[in-house]
Structure formats: C-alpha cells, structure tokens
C-alpha cells in the first residue's frame, strides 16, 4: 500500500479499476478470437454492466479518496451512471454499423471503454490535475475514434479537425488552469475556493476565468467555440458521433459544474455573466443553423449545440435547483439523442450512407417501429409534453425563473419553439414523403435493444419523472460537501 493510501481508496475506485481491467481484457479477447466479433462485443457489454453495477453500489456514499483528488458522492455517481448508460447504448448500436463499414471492432470497443474511463474521472475529479487527465484520456480516444473509418475522407477530415482544434482548446484550458494555480497555489478545487474566498479580483484571475470558460466551451461545443462540431459530427462514424454528442458533453458539464460552482464560487458574478451570454448565443445560433441543414447528422449536431445552450442555463442559475435541472436534462438527453443517432446508424446500408434527410423518406412504410421510435425522439428533443424532454425543459425553465434570469428563460422558450420546426421536418419526411430506393433496412437484435431502451427512457421519465427528480435532487444536495471536506484537510 503506498503511503497515504488506505484500502478504502482502492475500494471506492472499484468502478474505474473494473473498467480499466475490462478494457484491457477486450484487447486480449480480440487477439484470441480474431474472427469472433461477438466475443469482443460480449466482453465490452459485460465490462460496462459490471462497472455500472459497481457505480450503482456506491449510491449514497459521500466521501473523498486518493488524498482529496477524487470525490465519490451523489453528483459523481449520477454522472457515472449517465456516462455508462450512454456507453452501453453506443456499443449496442455499433456492431451492425461496423459490419457495413467493414472495420475491425476490437480496438473500437477498447477506445470506447477508454473514453468512458476518462469520463468517469471527469465526473469524480475535484482537483484540476485529475480532471485534466480524465479529459485528455477521453479526448484522445475520441480523436482516434472520429477517424476510425480510414478509407472515408470525411472521417479523416473529422479526426484531423477535431484533433487540431481540440489540441488548441486544451492549451487554452491548461493556460487558464495554470493561472489559477499561480493565483491560489493549489490545484484542489476546495483549496482554490478557500484561497479565493477573500473576494478580491485581479486582472490575472479574470484572464484565467475567460481562458477556462473558452476551453470548456469548446468541449461542450458552445457558440462561438462550436465551429468544429458539425464537420466532426458529420464525418465521424455515427455511433461515435452519438457518444461524442452525449457522453463527452455530459462529462464536460460535470467538469464545468465542479470547477465553477465548487472551485470558483467567489467569482460567481463574473462567470455567471460569461455563461449567460454563452447560453443565449449558443441556443440561438444552434437552432437557427439547424433549420437549414439537409443532412441529419449535421442537423443533430446543431441541435446538440442548442441543447448545450439549454443546459448552460442550469450552470448560470448556479443554485442547487440549477444543478439539479442540468442533471435532469442531461439524463433525459441521453435517451433522446442516442436514440435519434441509433436510427441514423440503422439507415446505413451497403448502398446507402443514410445520413441525408431524404433517406428518411417513407420510413413509416418500411420500418414502422423505427419510424415511431424516431417520432418519439424528435418530440422529446423538441420538448413536447408526454415525453422526457418536456420534463427536462420544465426544470431548466423553473431554475432560470427561480434564480431571477427571466430574460434567459424567455430566450429559452423562443428557441424551443424555433427548434420544433426542424424536428417536425424529420417527421414529415418519415410519414409524408414517398419511399426511396435502396436495399432493405435491417434492424439487428443489438440495435433493436438500443432503440427499445431509448424509447422507454424517453417516455418513462416524461410520464413518471419523480424517480429522476429525487435522484437529481439528492445528487445536487450532496454537491459541494465533498469539496468542503477536502478543503479542510
């Protein structure tokens, strides 16, 4: 046992350790059974299931481990569940897509699991160093995954664009972090909050704050740091796009909430203003740009930019209610967004790329189940009442009003109405347009499972949201207690 460590440190790290071990085993299984892709798939699903079980096992725990670098609290657990569920859905929608694209699956699943590992650390890190290495692990995995379709030029373009811009933004983020380290002499969020508690501001802190906001803004694709998103989302393999737009976004929001609300509460007036502007611009630009898209993946990219803007409202509110609303929204977003991407991945056949709006034509006649599922995802993304998306929006709206951001709430509602236009357009194509050519659409069992889970999620939390509300509230309540205990060390 290394000095300063106890058995408890490793006990609470169980999910991360299981995931790491499982990821390495996936590589071994892939090597032992090179022609049996089900073996690799099975190992990946098993790893995620076991990790998920370990995470859920720590419900209600509230402690810090590893000398105050990591927190195991309700907030971390909530985000870990989000990340693992999205990884699970992503893996389920992958096998048929990979088969059509004729790429090897082994390293693909390994990289998905490694990205998940990075996200787990982003969810539980309460120290800039842990958070940064977690972010970097996730980002590097995604750079490679985005370019996984090597003969495909658009995939190459996506990978290079994401890598270059990602490296720049990471540099900006690091610069901001190092300035905060210089100003406070610590990388621990709790320590930073304590050191800055005097309330005095300086040019250095303002600069550090702007850099930090810019760096994180890139990760959640907030306008004006969103330029990479449409191209990368369009070029990357569809399941990777799905995971990028949900998992990576959720983990980055976990990091934003931790850093700003726990680490920099004394600068709240400054970053609240920055995020206010960012939220308003992000949702407006995202929605207006989405209207003109004819490619579904690009449309969903802009829609996901808009959704990042919505979730930022929870950050702006900076109250427990705001945090809870962001958590609720991220949770329902998992099902509707991944579900929509699963349908797009399903449309990929040998002779059809399937990412244009017209490829959806007549889907209702060809595959009624898929069309109805897509209908539910679109209604949920648009925030229509019986679906989970409505509940998410309701909470964000409430949080904004409660914290007195009435104008932001107004912009939010106007944007939700604008977004209905392009979500309905998808429905129109599926029901009212004529059938197009192309080979038969096949729904593999794994894909069907993913679709069913996504549909159930999108409906269940709209009809019976109380469970979700309770869990989000508990997570938000525990939020911050870990840092204050870490600061006392």
């Amino acid at each position, binding site marked *: 046992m*290394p*000095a*300063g*460590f106890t058995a408890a440190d490793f006990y609470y*790290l169980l999910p991360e350790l299981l995931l*790491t071990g499982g990821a390495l085993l996936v*590589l071994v299984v892939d090597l032992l059974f090179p022609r049996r892709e089900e073996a690799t798939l099975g190992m990946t699903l098993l790893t995620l299931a076991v990790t998920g079980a370990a995470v859920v096992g720590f419900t209600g725990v509230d402690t810090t481990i*590893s*000398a105050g*670098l*990591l927190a195991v609290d309700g907030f971390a657990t909530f985000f870990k569940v989000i990340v693992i569920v999205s990884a699970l859905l992503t893996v389920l929608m992958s096998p048929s897509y990979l088969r059509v694209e004729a790429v*090897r699956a082994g*390293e693909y699943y*390994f*990289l998905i699991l*490694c990205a998940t*590992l*990075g996200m787990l*650390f982003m969810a539980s890190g309460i*120290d800039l*160093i*842990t958070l940064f*290495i*977690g972010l*970097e*692990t996730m980002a*590097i*995995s995604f*750079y*490679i995954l985005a*370019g*996984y379709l*090597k003969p495909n030029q658009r995939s190459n373009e996506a*990978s290079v664009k994401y890598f270059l811009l990602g490296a720049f933004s990471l540099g900006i983020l690091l610069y901001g972090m190092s300035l905060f380290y*210089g*100003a*406070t*002499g*610590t990388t621990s969020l709790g*320590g930073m909050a304590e*050191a800055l508690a*005097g309330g*005095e*501001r*300086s*040019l*250095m*802190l*303002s*600069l550090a*704050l*702007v850099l930090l906001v*810019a760096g994180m803004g890139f990760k959640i694709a907030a306008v*004006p740091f969103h330029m990479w998103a449409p191209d990368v989302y369009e070029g990357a393999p569809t399941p990777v796009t799905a995971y990028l737009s949900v998992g990576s976004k959720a983990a980055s929001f976990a990091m934003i909430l931790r850093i700003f609300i726990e680490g920099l509460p004394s600068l709240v007036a*400054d970053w609240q203003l*920055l995020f206010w502007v960012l939220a308003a611009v992000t949702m407006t630009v995202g929605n207006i740009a989405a209207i003109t898209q004819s490619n579904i993946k690009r449309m969903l990219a802009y829609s996901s930019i808009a959704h990042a803007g919505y979730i930022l409202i929870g950050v702006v509110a900076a109250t427990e209610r705001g945090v809870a609303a962001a958590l609720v929204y991220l949770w329902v977003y998992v099902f509707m967004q991944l579900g929509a991407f699963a349908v797009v991945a399903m449309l990929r056949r040998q002779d059809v790329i399937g990412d244009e709006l017209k490829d959806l034509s007549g889907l209702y006649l060809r595959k009624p189940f898929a069309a109805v599922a897509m209908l539910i995802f679109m209604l949920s993304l648009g925030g229509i009442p019986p679906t989970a998306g409505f509940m998410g929006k309701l909470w964000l709206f409430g949080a904004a009003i409660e914290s007195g951001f009435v104008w932001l709430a107004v912009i939010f509602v106007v944007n939700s109405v604008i977004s209905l236009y392009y979500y309905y357009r998808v429905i129109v194509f599926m029901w009212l347009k004529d059938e197009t050519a192309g080979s038969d659409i096949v729904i593999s069992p794994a894909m069907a499972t993913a679709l069913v889970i996504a549909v159930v999620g999108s409906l269940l939390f709209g009809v019976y949201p109380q469970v979700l509300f309770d869990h989000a509230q508990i997570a938000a309540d525990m939020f911050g207690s870990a840092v204050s205990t870490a600061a006392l060390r």
Partner: protein
Amino acid sequence: MAEAIVFWTLAVLILGLGIAVISARSAVHSVLFLVVNFLLVAVLYVTLNAEFVAVIQVLVYAGGIVVLYLFVVMLVNLKKAPERYADPRRVPWTGTLLAGAVLAEVIAIGVYSTVSSDGAAATGGGLGADTPFSDCGSLVSCNTEQLGWVLYTSYLIPFELASMLLLVAMIGAIVLAKRHL
C-alpha cells in the same frame, strides 16, 4: 532584483523565439527555433529550482520530440510553404469580429475588476509544505526525490490514469497508421 532581470530576459527571448517558430518560412528553421525555445524554457525551470523538470525538458523535448519533428519535416519534404487556405465559404470577418468581441470582454472585465478591487491577492501554500523533504541537504537530489514522492503517493491515481492515456495513444497510432489490421 537579479531574479527579475533573468526572468524578464528569458520571458522576452522565449516569446520572441515562439513567434519566430510560427513565422519562419522554412520548416527546418522553425524546428531549430523550437529547439532553442525549449532550451530556454529549461533554463527558466532551473531558475525556479526545478532542476529535474529542466533536465527532462532538455532530454525529452529538446532531444526526443524535436528529432521526431525533423523526421516529419524530412519525410513530408516541405520545400515551400503550403498555399494559403482559400475556402470560398469562408468569411474572414466573422472570426475577426468574434476575436474582437472576446478581447473587448477581457478588457472590460479587466478594467472592471481593477477598478473594483484594491489589488491582486495571491496566497501561497501548495505542495511541499507537508512532504518529508522540507529540509534535505542537496538541492538537486532533493528535487527529484520530492517529485517522485508526490507522483507515487498523492498523485498516484492521475499518474496511473496517464499511463492508460499513453496506451490509448499507442493503440490509436497503430490503428490509424496501419493499412490493414
């Protein structure tokens, strides 16, 4: 005083070389400027009493990484600079406008915060205060020992995570570079 002179001289030189790296016409010149830049950063580390980091900087960056850069430059054979990127869809003024807006925001916040506060507050502390090496004799060995101690105790978990990161990078490089897997 002497420290300040050394720091500012180094800072100006490092920034100047950094600009030289990105503005040099020939790629080889760029790389050579980069070597000098790395070496000066190493000197900066020495003035900060971080001898171990300085040595690693020289070995890894000035030594290893730059050699790799030279390999790339040699393989890609950049005789002349690539043609300017001209995308017909590109609207240069949006970028300028955004950059201007962000700059204005920074300045506004800066002015606002200097007006509303008396001055910068920076508190010390940090690591090292409670490590068992606060009073060791030889400075250089002490430095390395302290770093190793911190890396393998308090920062063990991020350190191990970094090894996963490197594994991902290695496997990724193979996946992307190999023609047929």
